């Protein structure tokens, strides 16, 4: 059975971490458990895992967009927009929604660098929120004529007289199909990019008081376009059934791009599988679980997994919610919790959530545009079209330093300062052994299972022997907070 039949405490904690940003830090001192995790596990006992997962995904379509619904947002005020979004990640009960917004932002990597307008980026961000668990194919259509995207990938420059291929290429390469399928064969040829560009021509974007996106028939190439015909030098094994023609004078011309997108989703790869479904599923699994092994030339250990999920995705009409649900029900999702390195957003938001940490003043202002940027993930500013690569790419000398600096500040100070947490929330002053304290925090911040050597090191940090005195303020302030700091810097804590 590929699907889980139970969802115990540990699995529930992992689910809250991956399908969101971690539990909300509320704690039952008697059981030593995070109450949100316990509630989810209990729900799964009552309704079955599927029921619990449905509850995680039970939220209304949200069109929330920007601080004060953008009324307060001065153009160019990216820090304010970033803080607003991070606040949603920190505070929202159902973490999955903002997690999906983060996935879509990573996927459709559009950078404020080139777009320039924070309002445009906020509108795009709202589009992702609207479609967080919605129809992905429809989202691709909507993003094609999104104002920020029009600027980012030069869609607004693309006209019949002067075609610009940028979006036509990235639409296929990065957003839907990928250059190569799992068998290493090209999915499309240069001709297809050129002709898709012609189909996408004619859109303009203007910003004055409002963002205005319009279709201009005079700039649109109305000729017929033959797309995905096999090309000997590039796509010799292209399935001939992929070929389609957009007739000349397609009517209505402003919907020609939608026809193009529908046809892209019909593309079948050289192994006879639905290309877009496979491509998106692979991306989603990488973001939520781990980088799957599916390519020819590897043992392809995850091929069946990805193909089964891709079928669910396709059959649901490319519904992201359906795909997520299927993903979260797989045993593979829970198998190993150290295969992916947490992104800066996950590290920062998760740590704050799980310790009920507080940010205020300069730290609150800093955390958005600056702290995450220094960790290597400035929201709204992915480094380029290939986006944040994730995993190893998060680790450099400087970015890990920033994590540890942040962790030190969160661990070492109390809530009254600009950043801190209340360590007394999580200890029982009547306890007097080191292992009890260690266990509490390993469970709270994970649960993390460490090997005996690491456990010994954590114990030794607290002291050479038991008993310890948790009523001693200084001991708690130095040693217990130091323990929290050590755990926040564990290699295991940096992965999930």
């Amino acid at each position, binding site marked *: 059975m590929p699907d889980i039949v139970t969802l115990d405490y540990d699995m529930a904690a992992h689910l809250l971490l991956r399908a969101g940003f971690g539990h909300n830090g509320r704690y039952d001192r008697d059981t030593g458990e995070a109450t949100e995790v316990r509630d989810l596990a209990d729900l799964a006992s009552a309704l079955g895992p599927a029921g619990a997962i449905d509850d995680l995904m039970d939220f209304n379509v949200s069109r929330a967009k920007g601080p004060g619904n953008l009324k307060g947002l001065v153009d160019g005020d990216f820090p304010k927009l970033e803080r607003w979004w991070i606040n949603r990640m920190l505070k929202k009960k159902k973490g999955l929604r903002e997690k999906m917004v983060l996935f879509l932002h990573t996927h459709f990597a559009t950078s404020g660098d080139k777009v320039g307008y924070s309002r445009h980026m906020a509108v795009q961000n709202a589009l992702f929120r609207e479609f967080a668990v919605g129809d992905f194919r429809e989202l691709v259509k909507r993003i094609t004529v999104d104002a920020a995207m029009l600027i980012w990938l030069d869609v607004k420059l693309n006209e019949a007289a002067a075609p610009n291929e940028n979006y036509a290429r990235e639409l296929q390469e990065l957003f839907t199909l990928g250059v190569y399928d799992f068998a290493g064969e090209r999915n499309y040829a240069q001709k297809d990019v050129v002709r898709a560009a012609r189909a996408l021509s004619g859109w303009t974007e203007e910003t004055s008081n409002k963002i205005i996106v319009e279709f201009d028939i005079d700039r649109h190439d109305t000729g017929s376009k033959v797309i995905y015909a096999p090309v000997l030098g590039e796509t010799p094994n292209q399935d001939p059934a992929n070929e389609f023609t957009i007739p000349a004078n397609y009517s209505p011309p402003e919907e020609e791009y939608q026809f193009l997108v529908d046809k892209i989703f019909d593309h079948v790869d050289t192994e006879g599988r639905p290309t877009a479904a496979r491509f998106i599923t692979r991306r989603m699994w990488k973001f939520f679980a781990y980088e799957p092994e599916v390519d020819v030339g590897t043992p392809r250990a995850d091929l069946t997994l990805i193909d089964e999920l891709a079928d669910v995705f396709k059959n649901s009409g490319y519904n992201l919610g359906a795909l997520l649900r299927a993903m979260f029900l797989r045993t593979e999702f829970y198998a190993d919790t150290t295969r*992916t390195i947490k992104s800066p957003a996950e590290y920062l938001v998760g740590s704050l959530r799980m310790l009920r940490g507080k940010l205020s003043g300069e730290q609150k202002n800093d955390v958005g545009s600056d702290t995450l940027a220094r960790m290597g993930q400035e929201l709204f500013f992915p*480094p380029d079209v290939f986006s944040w690569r994730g995993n190893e*790419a998060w*680790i450099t*000398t400087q970015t890990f330093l920033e994590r540890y*600096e942040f962790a030190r500040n969160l661990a070492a100070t109390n809530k009254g300062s600009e950043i801190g947490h209340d360590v007394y929330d999580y200890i029982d002053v009547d306890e007097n052994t080191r292992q009890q304290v260690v266990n509490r925090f390993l469970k709270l911040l994970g649960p993390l299972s460490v090997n005996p050597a690491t456990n010994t090191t954590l114990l030794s940090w607290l002291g050479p022997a038991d008993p310890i005195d948790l009523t001693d303020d200084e001991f708690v302030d130095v040693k217990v907070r130091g323990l929290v700091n*050590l755990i926040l810097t*564990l*290699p295991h804590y940096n*992965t999930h």
Partner: protein
Amino acid sequence: MFNRRQFVKASMAASAASAFPSIWWRARQASALEPCETGVNLVIVQLEGGNDGVNTVIPMSNGTGMNYSTYTTLRPYIGIPVSELGPTQVGNDPLHSGQLALHPHMVGLKSLYNSGNLAVILGVHSLDTSLSHEIAELIWYRADPALTVGTGWMGRTIGQLCAGQQAAVAAVDTQSELTPLFAGPNASVLAFDDLGDLGFPVQDTFGSMETGDYKAAFGTIHNNAATTGTTMIQAIGAAGAATVAKVDAYATANEDLAVNLNDLINGDANGSGGFGVVGFPQRFELARGLRTVFALMKGAQPGNVPLGCRIFRVRIGGFDSHSEQGNHIPLATKSIAEKVMDNNDFGELEFHGRLMHRVSSAISAFWQDCVDDGALYKNTVIMTFSEFGRRIEENGNANQNSGTDHGTAAPMFVIGPNAVQSLGPTHVVGGMYGAYPELDQPDDDGNLVIQLDFRDFYAEIINRWLGLSAPTTQSILNGWSYTPQGFLVP
């Protein structure tokens, strides 16, 4: 708020493939090299804000062109009179043969020109440019005018030099945040602005007695993780373990060893050459950065164990001289009051001229320290760059308010060992390279037309100084096919 503490943290290596530098270099090094040491040092000096190239290398005569005449016409106030340029005259313009001089306050660099250690590369920029600081800077950092690649050219270079070397620190950026220059696939780069601040990030946080215990615990956990668990865990473990191992060594680097730089920084009321008084550290931003670099190049104390880091970036800001760029006051006539005024970053006297002096005096003092070392001058190259030059014509009303707006091409400097001095075969060939852009033939914005693509400038350094192969160099520069210029000769 806690003080920023920095520590060394190596990054993960993606693959085992690496491009080894030439055998000759490695063979000549006596001591054991750190894994990705090339055997040569490279110091990158960034002039931030857009340096006015036309007042850095200045026309003295027309030659077959119109540069001198145009200069005097378009720069009535900020222009430097030719009567002041004799002492710093360098070579002629390769294009129109007009005589050229360095800014008169660049006495130190002129001396390096005389000894064959300075190459002046004229008219350098990107064809696809921007007049925005941020965008232009990104173009220069990434060596990518189209801005489609998110890594820095030095990040990619280090990625090639250090592939497979998780524990090495390849470069140091002497400011508290890592510049995009170093963004790369597995760039192990340390960034800090104060060597005295270097320490493990929990110094004193949990009580001064606990720091050692904390570091030990951190080190034990990471060393353990480096050999157990998943690939991800091992990678993080290795990086953390390397950090704890390195931090103590780096903290021992001794800035007192940079005698000439310290003399410059701690100068008396007259200063060196009359530029200011003690107690105004902002004047010596570049000198302090180079002092740190020198200390790191000398290595950990005692016994000068090499720290393994060979690539450095320093910076000096203030070049955005839109207004009050200042005219020229000959050194001999400077009053004490004027010298005191020089301490201020903003003022009406010689704003740009003071920057020229700071760049020249800091680099020369650094070079002298390398020479006095007896070894470091033989394998160290310094290169300068700025995100763009400035407008040909001065703005304003030909008075002390005049300045220059954002521009394009500008000269770059490369300083290094000449043929006699160099440890290895590669050496600097002093002289003039590129071409002086024609001041009377501006582009539509009134800016200089570029004469040399900046990627040719970078390529020569990557290929000839750092020893990476031509195909690797080309791939680092996103396919740019480079034309050797000759300021570095293998």
